[in-house]
């Protein structure tokens, strides 16, 4: 298998997994009190967002396109 296809496949599968697990952890911790837990919730949300972005990049939906000259 082509290495590029393999790394994209791992990015997609891993990204979905990480997004799901971080969203689930956020859901479970939703009602926990305390300053540190509030920060953790924000960070878990951003982690899930990052995993979704990586998944979309792996799928080729997002990517850096050259700015028109």
């Amino acid at each position, binding site marked *: 298998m082509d290495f590029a296809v393999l790394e994209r496949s791992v*990015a997609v599968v*891993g*990204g979905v997994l990480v997004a799901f697990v971080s969203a689930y*952890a956020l859901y479970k911790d939703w009602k926990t009190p305390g300053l*540190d837990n509030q*920060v953790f919730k924000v*960070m878990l949300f951003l982690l899930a967002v*990052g995993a979704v972005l990586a998944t979309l*990049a792996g799928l080729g939906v997002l990517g850096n396109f*050259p700015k028109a000259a």
Partner: protein
Amino acid sequence: MPHGAVADPDEGQVDQLYAETRQLRLQGFLLFLVSDVVLFSSFIFAYLYLRNTLPAWPPPGINRLDVGFAAFNSVVLFGSGVTMHYALESWKHGKFARYANFLIATIVLGAAFLAGQGYEYTNLYMREHVSWSGSGAFGASFFTLTGMHGFHVFVGVCYLTVLLLQSCAGVYTKEKYFGLTAGTLYWHFVDVIWVVLFSIFYLI
């Protein structure tokens, strides 16, 4: 208290002191993270400014960055954020073996991310001839920002290794584990910064 152990008369006082100082230490650590956000923000805005002043990005002669590999490496780092979260959760629930496994997984994934970054740097330098000083605004901004982030990941890997050794040595208890909370906050911070860097360098 275990059977036969002698009661420490100062224990209550120590607990009270810990509870009082924990909040202060947490606020201090969060302020440190905020100062790091300011540092990264200034470099990110400088990068965005430079990018918008040039008519084409990447500049002529430089190929687009490899999005596929970056996505793979990002998932490695984001995965380490999840394992770190569960390491702390396991510690809170008194599951030491589970905690140690998750923390070791975090350290390994962090080191793997650094190895991936090293591979990407080597590829850029050897094949694309992109360097920090010889590729104008593109090379300077890319290597400065990702290098600064990589240094933070390296410090985080060292930090988590120290935390693992400390927890094995019995420095932390189920009730007193601020060091582990701070370590988790730092690692999540490093992950979140990468979400931004990944977006601005590879996705837009």
